């Protein structure tokens, strides 16, 4: 079973394939649910394809593709939640997955690792991570990091280590517990 942080990674990779250069990942814990939302400024999905996008095996990319969204939809619906896709053609896509907290809800997983790896392995794109729970809110923005480090690359070892530690700290603050231990 895949955790929420792996779904987030997969959705972000979809965004990058759609030529997005800004991807926002939001993970929100409510009293009775987790909401994972990934939105981008990529090429968008047209109306008729939007209906098919989450069907198993439907893909415009070939090979063993086309299972990511359907897997996510199935996982969300199993908890009594849902997956919603929204897109205004050529103006980005927003995927919102709602997981109701119960025994079917996948663990949150290591969201810090997902975002840090996106940040350093896709240095030409920017990422925003919004974490929120009844404990508080946190916002991480790679554009802010890049402005601060100037000509130094975000892939530079010291920077990469800092991002990892920073995100792990934020995850603990907002959700409590170590990054990969949190379950619904």
């Amino acid at each position, binding site marked *: 079973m895949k955790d929420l942080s792996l779904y987030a990674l997969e959705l972000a990779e979809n965004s990058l394939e759609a030529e997005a250069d800004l991807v926002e990942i939001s993970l929100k814990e409510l009293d009775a649910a987790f909401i994972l939302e990934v939105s981008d400024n990529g090429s968008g999905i047209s109306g008729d394809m939007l209906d098919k996008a989450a069907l198993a095996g439907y893909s415009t990319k070939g090979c*063993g593709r086309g299972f990511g969204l359907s897997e996510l939809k199935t996982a969300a619906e199993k908890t009594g939640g849902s997956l919603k896709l929204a897109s205004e053609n050529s103006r980005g896509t927003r995927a919102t997955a709602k997981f109701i907290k119960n025994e079917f809800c996948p663990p949150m997983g290591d969201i810090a690792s997902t975002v840090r790896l996106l940040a350093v392995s896709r240095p030409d794109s920017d990422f925003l991570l919004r974490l929120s729970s009844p404990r508080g809110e946190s916002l991480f923005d790679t554009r802010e990091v890049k402005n601060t480090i100037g000509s130094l690359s975000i892939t530079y070892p010291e920077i990469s280590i800092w991002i990892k530690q920073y995100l792990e*700290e934020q995850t603990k603050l907002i959700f409590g517990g170590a990054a990969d231990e949190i379950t619904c």
Partner: protein
Amino acid sequence: MKSLAELQTIRENTRLQLNLRHERPDNISVKVGLATCGINAGARQVLSKFVDELAERRIENVTVTAMGCVEKCDKEPIVEVLIPGEEKVTYVNMTPEKAVKVIQEHIVNKKVVAEYTDGASV
């Protein structure tokens, strides 16, 4: 609490070194397949290992990036290593442990880990 101010310090400390290095011609490229097939097979842990190990060893001439599906889904996680002037090497069915060996032997010592390559595992 960590803060952005620490990034400022890192930037100042490294400015001098970076000026000496400038555009390195020996930049090695590592690509990890991160499509659905790769992620399901454990690619994030492999990518994570490459990024962590290289950072901890302060190896700076390696760029680790994600790549899409290369139509060999049953061999994921797939990792491509390209050293300038040499042929691209494709490692298949990778794990974090194998990633460490690839860094030690291929990236540091320039010896391909033949047993992990595409042809060898079939």
